[in-house]
């Protein structure tokens, strides 16, 4: 009996979302003009958008690992 494949389990869809998450993660995690002079200001180097970017990279790793591990 062939199991019906859902939309979210198709390899192409998973891989596309993985790449999308990877690109968005890189966009959010990128340092915004942070130089050595950051120590002179009270601004934190790690902000909330960087954490969001990191979480996006983790999610993209899960999806890309799933897409690569699938044989079909």
């Amino acid at each position, binding site marked *: 009996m062939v199991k019906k494949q859902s939309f*979210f*389990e198709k390899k192409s869809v998973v891989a596309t979302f993985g790449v*999308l*998450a990877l690109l*968005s993660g890189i966009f*959010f995690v990128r340092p915004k003009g942070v130089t050595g002079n950051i120590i002179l200001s009270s601004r934190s180097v790690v902000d909330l958008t960087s954490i969001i*970017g990191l979480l996006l990279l983790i*999610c993209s790793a*899960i*999806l890309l690992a799933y897409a690569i591990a699938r044989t079909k």
Partner: protein
Amino acid sequence: MLNIKEFSIIIVISIILALTISLIESLELFLYALLTIFLVILVNIFAKKIISFYLESEIEIKLWELKRYGFRTHDYLKKPFPAGAFFPIIITALTFGYVYWMACLVFETKPKVYRTAKRWGLYSFSEMTERHIGAIASAGIFANLIFGVIGYLIGFPEFARLNLYYAFFNMIPIGNLDGNKIFFGNIVLWSFLAILVLIGLGYALLLV
């Protein structure tokens, strides 16, 4: 669709969340936050109720309670701690109003008696599967995301933002929250939803 107990829990949680979000700056702001939060919670719950109906089950909304405090088998609290009611206040107080904790409600699924008859075939069963529980939980998150986009497009940015915050906190895979149900039901679906929620949240924080 909602019984008195569920409705009263939703009202209490709406008031707590509205208090933490508005920080009692003004009565108008509090009432606006209360109405918005109430709508956000209703969107989430009704989506889950509709999907549970189609999966031959019914859900009951409850306050999020913590019962375990450790990994050992006897690490249980004698009385469950109502984390859903206290976490928003504690987190807001600890972060001086910078972070609003919005994951307060959980649900329990009960299969209907005719589930076995309808789920016929090779795998005839009456119990709820992890996958179906995850599907019900994900419906609420999807609904919040869709209403967030609609709210943004029709000019209600605060409604959109609160939908995203609510979805984000419910996606955290801890305790009995929706995120845990989706995570153990279907990790790929959890990753999809997490990506959508995080992109939406990043957009809301950066641009809106």
